[in-house]
């Protein structure tokens, strides 16, 4: 049996999709699993060792260049796309999973001949697969308040009919390395906590606890980071190297980054500072016991595609070094303070803890007493939606899928924000 997964989004999405590919492998131990990914993210291959048999690259940048750069014939991209599809079709896939859910991948999935397509695909301009109630819910509500409490990974798994195994619980971990890692910079300026504050936090952790702090960054971030941190405390490295360090770290402090999702794969304890457009209720760490601090500001979470609308970054200003240091102490077991007391003392912040249970799947638990009621409502609503959509899936499967029903797909499709 040959299975092709199509995943043409960004690095973070690929990491978030790993549990799905792991399940595919577990359910199909003898299958050849191939993954079509953007060439620029080939660095994630190591994460799928022993899971994916072959990676096939989509050179998105070159395709995009070919549509606009003057030296290219405007049909060059068309010819190369035909070559790629022809290569893929030579593999005679039995099943194609579209893990991406946007128009581009729907067209590509439709061009690949296969006995079974899971997820959306097109034929002669018509979209298929959108009659699945979970896919409808994903496309309509992901990134919106209606889907609060549904994690990207589990929603995608539901949409594709892939069962997920709950990850390991963090509580079994023991401190061994006395090492805290920080990744201060995110891909979006409005999601960043200031470097001055990270610097002050690092100084305090190293002065008042036995822990050493390692500041992690990508090579292109080095110039900025060296202005705030000494060279020997910096770890400028590839994703692969970073993952090796994360495995043994006692804590990762970061914003909404791919490194956060990577740490979740290794059950490394995470303290997330959710600023700007971060949506911890949907793309928090897919892990048990991860802590999230989110400032309570009227403008947040802000829209992902727009710059900060305020004169100064209010959400950033609202998280103090003192608060993050306090949370760090609790996670590391250096303080016995209860999270609810911590939340009470830092009332300008929402304090959340992630949970993964067999009954509810992934959930966010609010540590703030005033948000308990709202939190309970979210959980209840999630359970009702799960029951109703699962019932509809059951009926759909019982009655046979109506492949002729097509719906409109929004421009972006459903992507992790």
């Amino acid at each position, binding site marked *: 049996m040959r299975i092709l997964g199509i995943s043409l989004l960004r690095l973070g999405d690929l990491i978030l999709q790993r549990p799905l590919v792991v399940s595919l492998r577990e359910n199909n131990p003898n299958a050849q699993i191939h993954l079509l990914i953007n060439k620029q993210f080939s660095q994630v291959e190591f994460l799928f060792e022993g899971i994916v048999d072959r990676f096939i690259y989509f050179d*998105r940048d*070159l*395709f*995009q*260049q070919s*549509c*606009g*750069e*003057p*030296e*290219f*014939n*405007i*049909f*060059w*991209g*068309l*010819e190369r*796309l*035909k070559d790629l*599809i022809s290569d893929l079709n030579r593999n005679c896939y039995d099943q194609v999973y579209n893990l991406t859910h*946007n*128009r*581009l991948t729907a*067209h*590509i999935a*439709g*061009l690949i001949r296969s006995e079974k397509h899971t997820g959306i695909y*097109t*034929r*002669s*301009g018509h979209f298929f697969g959108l009659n699945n109630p979970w896919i409808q819910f994903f496309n309509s509500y992901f990134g919106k308040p209606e889907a609060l409490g549904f994690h990207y990974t589990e929603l995608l798994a539901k949409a594709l009919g892939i069962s997920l195994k709950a990850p390991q619980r963090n509580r079994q971990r023991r401190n061994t390395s006395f090492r805290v890692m920080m990744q201060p910079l995110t891909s979006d300026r409005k999601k960043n906590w200031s470097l001055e504050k990270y610097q002050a936090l690092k100084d305090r952790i190293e002065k008042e606890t036995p822990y050493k702090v390692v500041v992690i960054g990508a090579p292109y971030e080095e110039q900025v980071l060296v202005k705030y941190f000494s060279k020997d405390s910096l770890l400028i490295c590839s994703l692969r190297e970073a993952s090796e360090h994360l495995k043994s770290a006692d804590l990762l402090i970061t914003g909404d980054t791919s490194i956060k999702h990577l740490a979740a794969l290794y059950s490394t304890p995470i303290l997330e500072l959710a600023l700007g457009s971060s949506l911890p209720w949907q793309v928090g760490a897919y892990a048990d016991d991860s802590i999230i601090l989110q400032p309570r500001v009227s403008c947040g979470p802000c829209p992902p595609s727009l710059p900060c609308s305020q004169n100064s970054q209010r959400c950033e200003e609202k998280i103090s070094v003192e608060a993050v240091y306090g949370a760090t102490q609790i996670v590391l077991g250096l303080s016995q303070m209860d999270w609810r007391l911590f939340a009470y003392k830092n009332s300008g912040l929402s304090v959340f803890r992630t949970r993964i249970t067999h009954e509810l799947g992934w959930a966010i638990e609010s540590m703030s007493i005033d948000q308990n009621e709202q939190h309970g409502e979210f959980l209840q609503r999630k359970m009702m939606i799960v029951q109703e959509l699962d019932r509809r899936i059951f009926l759909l499967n019982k009655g046979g899928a109506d492949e002729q029903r097509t719906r409109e797909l929004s*421009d972006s499709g459903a992507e992790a924000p």
Partner: protein
Amino acid sequence: MTNISFTENPEGYLIPIESMQPLCDLVDPASEAEKWVTAQNLNICNEIVVLGLGAGFHVRALRENFPHLKIHVVECRDQLLPIFKKQIQSDLDCYYCFHSLEELLDSELFERTIAKSLPVYFFKKAWGAQEDLFYSLWKNLTGRSVYAIARHFANMGLEIDEKTMDSLKSSERPLTIKEATEIVIRSESTKAKEQRSYFEALRELIK
């Protein structure tokens, strides 16, 4: 036919000048050509078209840096090749002199460029006073003219109806893959339906 004059630079090279415009840097054409080559994305294909021979330094730089590249050089001024052969390189395997767009469209090079979607490069200074002609050659060789789109479509077994053809002809600007996609989407033919997803996928990439 245009008048080309030559002036000798400090290194003793004859630099062609057309309507007061030198076709390369007067003082250091070799360095200028090296810079141009460095700025090009030449890893797309092992066969390319270069529009404009001009003084030829850029063609020499291309051949020196990419000896295995098959280069088709297109020029429209007969006076330039003899000087190139004399002072830069004695041979030029794939050289074409088209005095008009029609000559290009009737050529085997045009057929080959369309069939293989060959990339087309140009060193704009080499165009001199012939910018309009070179621009129309570029539009056609890169699939950006109505005629070129029609030829590409014919190779795929697709036809463009007269109404669409007329509306496209009224556009002066270079056409894009978006216009080609619109034609395919509007078409009811079986061939167009088969190709539609390829075009729509490409259109998504340029949104």
